[in-house]
């Protein structure tokens, strides 16, 4: 993006984009409530619920005790009672405390009730690696995606943070909304995948991937902060004649296989980059879904680049070699290009 283009962009970071979306949706629909630790008085530990308490008061913006299991279940009850709760679990790493309510109640009640109960509930949480060690660094989107009944969204651009949050809140389905700690404090104009964040409310539909960069050599699929890393890597290798098509999935349930398969059919080479753990996760799922569409021998190269099944260490010297970043993505792209 040129200086010209960014000059007129709003000065807003991703967490403000989320807060703005929450604000507008709460204005729009009085059934929307938000609850969680530190969402009120301090406006969220990353600021993504700032200004809400003052405007909507403590009954709609509820600072909770550290009782995730119960306030997640409370969200389920609120949704059944007709509200549209947004429940914040501060870090996705803590989800193990309350996953029962997430997958056995929130995600299953619509089905168990034979469609008689709707579950318009959002779980808003933050993931990603920013040097915070094993218990504060996970992504875990595949953990949710393996369990049926919930949509799983992880935005990349500042704009999508706003539009996808609006979509999540307006959806009658339960949505897991995973923010990335490394993106939240970034200004809209600093994103490589930049784009203005409209001031008015708008919705980015859940389930449609975004082709962030067009290219003919390698299809690179990812989401969340890795979109930024991948853009950087793609720009690097472009100079070396490697033309990457980069797809931001935006959500992994639903998974826009169509878009990925079309691109892979064109390039013949598929790379999935994932900040979540490698095994039993997103990378294998995408590869197999594409092969199921295109045929078992349809692609020349299949490659995945993710956290290699190891807890995240505290030391940055170790984290760096485990978590995909611009340099490691570029390396993989070069290897793929060299191989055929």
């Amino acid at each position, binding site marked *: 993006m040129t200086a010209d283009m960014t000059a007129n962009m709003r000065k807003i970071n991703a967490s403000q984009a989320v807060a703005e979306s929450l604000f507008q949706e709460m204005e729009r629909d009085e059934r929307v*409530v938000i609850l969680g630790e530190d969402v009120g008085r301090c406006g969220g530990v990353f600021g993504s619920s700032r200004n809400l308490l003052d405007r909507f008061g403590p*009954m*709609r913006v509820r600072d*909770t*005790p550290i*009782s995730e*299991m*119960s*306030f*997640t*279940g*409370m*969200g*389920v*009850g*609120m*949704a*059944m*009672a*007709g*509200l549209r*709760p947004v429940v914040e679990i501060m870090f996705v790493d803590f989800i193990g405390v309350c996953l*029962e*309510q997430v997958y*056995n*109640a929130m995600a299953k*009640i*619509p*089905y*168990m*009730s*034979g*469609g*008689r*109960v*709707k*579950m318009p509930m959002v779980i808003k949480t933050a993931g990603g690696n920013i040097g915070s060690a094993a218990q504060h660094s996970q992504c875990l989107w595949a953990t949710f995606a393996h369990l*049926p*009944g919930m*949509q799983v969204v992880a935005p990349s651009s500042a704009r999508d943070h706003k539009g996808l949050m609006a979509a999540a809140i307006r*959806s*009658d*389905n339960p949505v897991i909304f995973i923010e990335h700690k490394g993106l939240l404090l970034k200004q809209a104009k600093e994103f490589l995948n930049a784009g203005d964040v409209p001031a008015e409310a708008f919705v980015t*539909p*859940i*389930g449609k991937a975004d082709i962030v960069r067009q290219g003919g050599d390698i299809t690179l699929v990812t989401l969340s902060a890795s979109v930024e890393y991948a853009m950087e890597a793609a720009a690097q290798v472009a100079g070396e004649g490697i033309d990457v098509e980069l797809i931001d999935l935006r959500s992994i349930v*639903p998974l826009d296989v169509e878009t990925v398969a079309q691109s892979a059919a064109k390039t013949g080479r598929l790379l999935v980059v994932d900040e979540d753990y490698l095994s039993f996760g997103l990378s294998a799922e995408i590869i197999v879904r594409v092969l199921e569409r295109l045929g078992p021998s349809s692609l020349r190269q299949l490659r995945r680049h993710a956290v290699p099944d190891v807890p995240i260490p505290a030391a940055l010297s170790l984290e760096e070699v485990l978590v995909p970043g611009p340099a490691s993505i570029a390396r993989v792209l070069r290897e793929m290009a060299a191989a055929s």
Partner: protein
Amino acid sequence: MKLNEINLFRTMVRLRAFDEACIEGVPTFEIHGELHTSIGQEAIGAAMAQSLTLHDAVVSTHRNHYHALAKGVPPRALMAEIFEKETGLCRGRGGHMHPFDPEHNFSATGIVGASLPVALGYAYNFKLKGLPYIAVGICGDGATNHGTFHECLNMAAAWGLPLVCLVENNQYAISVRFSDVTATPGIAERAAAYGAFGRRVDGTDVEEVVKAFAEVARYTRKGGGPSLLEATCYRHRGHYEGDHDNYRERAEKQRMRAEMDPIARYRRMLVERGAAEDELDQIVAAAKGEMSAMLADIRKDAMPDPAGAMDHVFAEVV
């Protein structure tokens, strides 16, 4: 509070007849999974039925039939769900542990400890909207040692939410005796740790339970914040139909059946007060007849069509 004795008796008898009809589906494999009956706990269901309004919410457990009926869930739809028919409350998807009736603000869960949080959500909504309704979250004695008990009572009390926590203390969590795994003699005494209103009642004395439930419900409905009612009782059958139940002494079970059957107790009481045995017999016969006929009718209903097995996972097709 004026009690209609015959009504109370009839309510209990109908509850029991309902569960007895369900039990008929077990040896035939119409009901698989674990069927949990509440036989011996009728007085509690009857008591709830007296004090609840349509708009109040109830969130129950794996042992939920009586609570559903007390909340006004249509018996036929409930039984059809227990028999997993397409005509069931949840089109046969939920089954006996997962009945959901949004019209009556009733739901349940098969996960121990998961009822109170959901009830808290209803209570929150009532408070948010300033409505004079209460949410009743039901637990067994076993569930009171789960963390959600603590978390929910604390939140309800801190925020003054209209939550009634009703504990059916039948002394066992499957094979585990309450006294072996609990620090205090009972549960009502824990209310103090939350500044909640706590009360214990003999849950097999129906008139006492009616009064006690009415009292806690009134307290909470009037804005007093959460209350906790512990109703002591005994589970007369196995934890589920088919349970070997070899963890309780035969003598204990016999004694409990003699002493702690709420229907037999109330019958004796009514007869002492002058009720005609005949009339009571007729009530029993009518209830059995009603439930048998209902069962026979439900048996003719269709099972869910396999073509719809994937329906209802999501509300909208995206």
